């Protein structure tokens, strides 16, 4: 966990007071909605179909049990008893009253949580690998750099009114769990030939109406130069990014239109003028941030304790263990993924009772720490392997032991037309039906890793472009239709999916997905060839034939 200091606490408290005053002035009529809109957006407050929606940041996906309990409190006290974890390590509350928002923010501020810059044309929540700091083989904990970026970008006056929103993601592992290639700036920690640690910097990734995979702008930037290099990129974007057309305002469009070489040259020129200036990071500063992250006092524990050996006799436990338990950097410990995708449930939702219970579980088994991943699942990062059987029972008791992590029913979905004012079609009911179709655990295991991502509109909050199977809701003559893409992926080999054919009706989506999965099972070269690899090998044509031959 990161320990906030007095500056952080003061900043967050001042922000709450400022927003309280703004809300008061809005409700008294002193501020018009036109004047207030940008202020509320900069505090994570949207207007959705039924009510205001309140988006709270969970920087780099790290939560303490105390913070999770406070989120549960907000869900219970100010909302309808649940929250929705998003694809960018945020949590959203769907039924907040504007008049009560300052109180909710004040309650969150007491535990160091805020909603600053979770919306608006500024730098958004800095996201990272949900296994940061505990993943085996990691170069170093990417949250140190995430925190440096968080502090640098929060309320940065030069970048508070960018042409459009701006998103960072950081990973330090060979396998990218942070989807850095679909971010405005993606950062991959690695070592150069001299053994120094630095960043591969990618720029111009993003989904939405015009999706692009990020391009490498610089293969290696030393840590001391991170802020100056990032600032050079943002200055070029701030200067040349289009403000006349919202659909062309993201940095990905600028990079595409200029070309990565010309864009890189502009950034280089800017950087050379400032790289040795005030933004150069001293080792001392980095070490100070590093020192504020605390790590558990791990015990020396066996890899295969008796408790685990005995529990392995229970097939239900084994099904969960083999699916949801992952290697940890410390012997005797494990990372446990917690699926928020129960059969028939809305992806990413957790009730206040579940949050409270999970906070207690985290205190008992995970040194009080919980992580949030962009796949809309949670994780417990420090579980002693001897505790796995007891943990499983505790999670199962609160409905959080669904063993479907990374399987076909582990679906990413945006709120869609059930909640969102931008959506054209529903996402959640499609996801729910698919989880029912693929509820059989043996079948899901036979299919293997398969990511289905669903968005209810072209804004792509459900990351449909990079789903192994992507589903995009569109509207035609007042009716919901869905376009299907296949072959996308969001990891280190990120690719955009390819459309397989005409959109299908709401009631046909689950059948079409079943057809695609059946085609894959028939076409794969071997049982361990993943769906996405079969698509890469064969292209979309065999799948297209299967889906449309009888339709």
């Amino acid at each position, binding site marked *: 966990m990161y320990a906030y200091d007095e500056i952080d606490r003061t900043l967050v408290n001042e922000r709450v007071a400022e927003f309280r005053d703004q809300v008061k002035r*809005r*409700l008294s*009529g002193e501020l*018009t*909605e036109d004047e207030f809109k940008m202020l509320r957006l900069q505090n994570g407050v949207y*207007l*959705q*179909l*039924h*009510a*205001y929606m309140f988006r709270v940041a969970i920087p780099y996906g790290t939560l303490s049990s105390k913070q999770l309990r406070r989120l549960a409190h907000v869900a219970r006290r100010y909302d*309808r*008893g*649940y929250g929705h974890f998003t694809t960018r390590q945020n949590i959203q509350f769907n039924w*907040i*009253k*504007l*008049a009560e928002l300052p109180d909710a923010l004040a309650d969150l501020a007491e535990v160091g949580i805020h909603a600053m810059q979770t919306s608006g044309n500024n730098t958004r929540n800095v996201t990272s690998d949900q296994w940061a700091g505990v993943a085996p083989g990691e170069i170093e904990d990417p949250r140190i750099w995430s925190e440096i970026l968080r502090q640098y970008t929060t309320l940065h006056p030069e970048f508070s009114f960018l042409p459009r929103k701006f998103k960072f993601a950081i990973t330090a592992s060979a396998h990218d769990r942070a989807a850095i290639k679909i971010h405005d700036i993606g950062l991959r920690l690695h070592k150069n030939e001299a053994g120094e640690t630095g960043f591969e910097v990618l720029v111009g990734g993003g989904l939405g109406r015009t999706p692009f995979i990020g391009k490498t702008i610089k293969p290696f930037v030393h840590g001391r130069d991170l802020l100056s290099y990032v600032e050079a990129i943002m200055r070029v974007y701030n200067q040349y990014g289009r403000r006349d057309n919202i659909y062309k305002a993201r940095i990905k469009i600028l990079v595409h239109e200029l070309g990565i070489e010309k864009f890189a040259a502009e950034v280089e020129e800017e950087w050379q003028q400032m790289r040795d200036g005030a933004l150069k990071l001293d080792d001392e500063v980095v070490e100070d941030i590093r020192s504020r992250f605390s790590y558990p006092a791990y015990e020396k524990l066996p890899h295969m304790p008796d408790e685990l050996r005995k529990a392995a006799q229970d097939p239900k436990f084994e099904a969960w263990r083999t699916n949801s338990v992952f290697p940890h950097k410390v012997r005797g410990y494990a990372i446990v993924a917690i699926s928020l995708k129960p059969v028939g*449930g*809305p992806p990413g*939702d*957790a*009730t*206040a009772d579940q949050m409270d219970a999970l906070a207690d579980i985290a205190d008992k088994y995970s040194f009080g720490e919980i992580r949030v991943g962009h796949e809309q699942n949670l994780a417990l990062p420090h579980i002693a392997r001897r505790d796995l059987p007891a943990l499983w029972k505790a999670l199962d008791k609160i409905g959080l032991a669904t063993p479907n992590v990374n399987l076909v029913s582990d679906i990413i979905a945006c709120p869609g*037309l*059930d*909640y969102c*004012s*931008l959506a054209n079609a*529903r996402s*959640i*009911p499609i996801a*729910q039906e698919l989880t029912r179709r693929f509820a059989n655990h043996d079948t899901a295991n036979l299919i293997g890793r398969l990511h289905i991502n669903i968005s209810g509109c072209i804004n792509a909050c459900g990351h449909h472009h990079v789903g192994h199977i992507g589903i995009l809701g569109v509207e035609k003559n*007042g009716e*919901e239709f869905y376009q299907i893409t296949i072959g996308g992926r969001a990891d280190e080999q990120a690719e955009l999916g390819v459309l397989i054919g005409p959109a299908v009706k709401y009631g046909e989506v689950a059948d079409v997905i079943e057809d695609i999965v059946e085609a894959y099972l028939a076409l794969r070269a071997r049982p361990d060839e993943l769906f996405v690899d079969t698509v890469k090998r064969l292209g979309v044509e065999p799948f297209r034939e299967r889906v449309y031959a009888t339709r």
Partner: protein
Amino acid sequence: MTSPLEQKKIRIAGPSIVTANRTWDGAVIYRTAGRAWSPELSDAAIVRTSGDARALLAESVADDLGAIGAYIAPVEIDDGGRIEPGNLREQIRRSGVTIGLPVQV
């Protein structure tokens, strides 16, 4: 959300109403013939011409303190004279989400 300004260019094709969200809590509301707001669709003022729709919208937008995001939405009127939402979006706004909520209110 379609902006009211854009909607002013739209010609309505059938019976329509003006809807918005209440400022203090965001709840769905409908403009009534009495120049007020109601949470009930059945209270909504019905307009049938583009001119009337524009006038109702203009009057609604003017109440910046009471409501936000006012826009014209289609409705259907059944044989019994009951007003029904004219599309899925409005149906969801009136009746709530089409899924079971994780916690029943």
